[in-house]
């Protein structure tokens, strides 16, 4: 009887751990993000489970009368090997195309790596401010590089592997009322 109880307890403990260990709870990672006043948290923010070698699109409606601040975060497993493209769907124009990080990772050069801001004397996570002249939709295209295969020969060609690694990619959106113009 005691053994049965022990069995049951062990099963109840181990099975949920095994399940949790395999899945990522990306949506909950949004709770870690805090808006910077005067901006407030916009509930269009999204954190999704993503895989290496895959492309993701986030279609974000923006309303006239508000200003938006977008920043991006990715799990370390991706090594910032991600490119970000933003297209304004009203015009079809590309308004931003940047890598996750660059060698210098200076301000405005990349999306994921922090830079040192001389004005505030602090490390700043990159952010991008959008001002909608009229209501529009942004398409955020996130391309995660495929996993590189370990080098076997002497040539410098980069080979990719079919192995997929997963992590979270977050689009953190903040907004505030537009200062420059009213709704119309």
């Amino acid at each position, binding site marked *: 009887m005691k053994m049965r109880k022990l069995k049951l307890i062990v099963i109840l403990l181990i099975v949920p751990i095994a399940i949790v260990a395999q899945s990522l709870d990306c949506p909950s990672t949004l709770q870690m993000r805090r808006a910077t006043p005067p901006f407030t948290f916009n*509930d269009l923010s999204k954190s999704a489970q993503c895989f290496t070698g895959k492309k993701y699109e986030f279609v974000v*409606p923006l309303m006239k009368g508000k200003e938006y601040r977008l920043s991006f975060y990715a799990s370390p497993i991706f090594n910032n090997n991600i490119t970000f493209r933003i297209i304004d769907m009203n015009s079809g124009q590309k308004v931003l195309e940047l890598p996750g990080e660059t060698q210098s990772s200076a301000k405005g050069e990349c999306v994921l790596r922090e830079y040192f801001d001389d004005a505030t004397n602090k490390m700043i996570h990159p952010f991008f401010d959008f001002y909608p002249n009229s209501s*529009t939709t942004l398409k955020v295209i996130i391309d995660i590089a495929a996993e590189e295969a370990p080098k076997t020969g002497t040539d410098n060609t980069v080979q990719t592997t079919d192995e997929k690694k997963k992590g979270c990619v977050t689009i953190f959106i903040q907004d505030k009322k537009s200062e420059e113009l009213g709704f119309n």
Partner: protein
Amino acid sequence: MLKINRPFDTNFLLTKKQINMNSLLSMFKTIMILAFIATFAACNGKGNGNDDKLNDSLVGLQDIQSQTYYLIPSPEGLFSFIKDGKLKYSDAVLNPTNNIDNYIDTRSKELNFGIYSADLAYVASFNKYQQSVDYLNTVRTLSDEIGISAVFDQNLIGRIDNIIDDQDSLLKVTSDSYLSIVRYLESSDRKKSLALIVTGGWVESIYVVVNLLDTYKQDAKVISLLASQKHVVSNLTSYLEQMKSDESIQMTINELKPLSAFYESLEVQKEEPKNGEQPKDGKIVVGGNAKIIMTEPQFLTLKKEITSVRNKMIKKS
């Protein structure tokens, strides 16, 4: 007597040890099998045997190279605009809480969970304390029936119970509850439930705003807000289309068709685009100068269509 029994006792003890060993071995095997099953279940995204999760993971397998997420604003996000528009408060636009008994099937419960969530956001934005508590209780009751009551943990319930007549905390709690529900459904991969809740929430928000307007004014902020929902409807339709193999989602898409057609018919007046060319203080200017036009007859059509869709959703299932 004791001497006679000793060998038997010893054998008995040995047998008991063997039994214990066998039990441990069997327990180990059981754990390994369960852990193996759990690992596979987690990898395939079919963990709880829920149909919702099963179908979603199949959809995911078909679309292995790219995935699109359509983002829909919450009711609270929409009502933050109407507070500035100085719209009046009216109980008449709400879905009465006693309608809750009308919803029998899961689709009705999930759609009306969204509808009641929007009503809650509306009453909270007007600082109506008692109505907020009533709608919060209705939302909590429905959450239990659609299997998401875990969202209302002790922390959230404590915050709800401690709300004093304070608009900010009332709004904050209702907004946090909605976000917790969205995160919970996303985390547990219940995409169809989330889609129905989001749809109900959006439909009710637009219904409330449209029915609070007494008169049409072409340049009113609220008319611009309603016209700009063209972008949201397009997102909502595409979002639902991703799950159209599900009967309840298909039914919802069909119900929304007149609204989608209405929004598609709205004219967009375009000027020369200036995107990305003239950043103001580092801001990226987007949207061109495309204005979505909604005339008075079109506003009246919207009122008719949204009322029809919303009334279908709140009727007895």
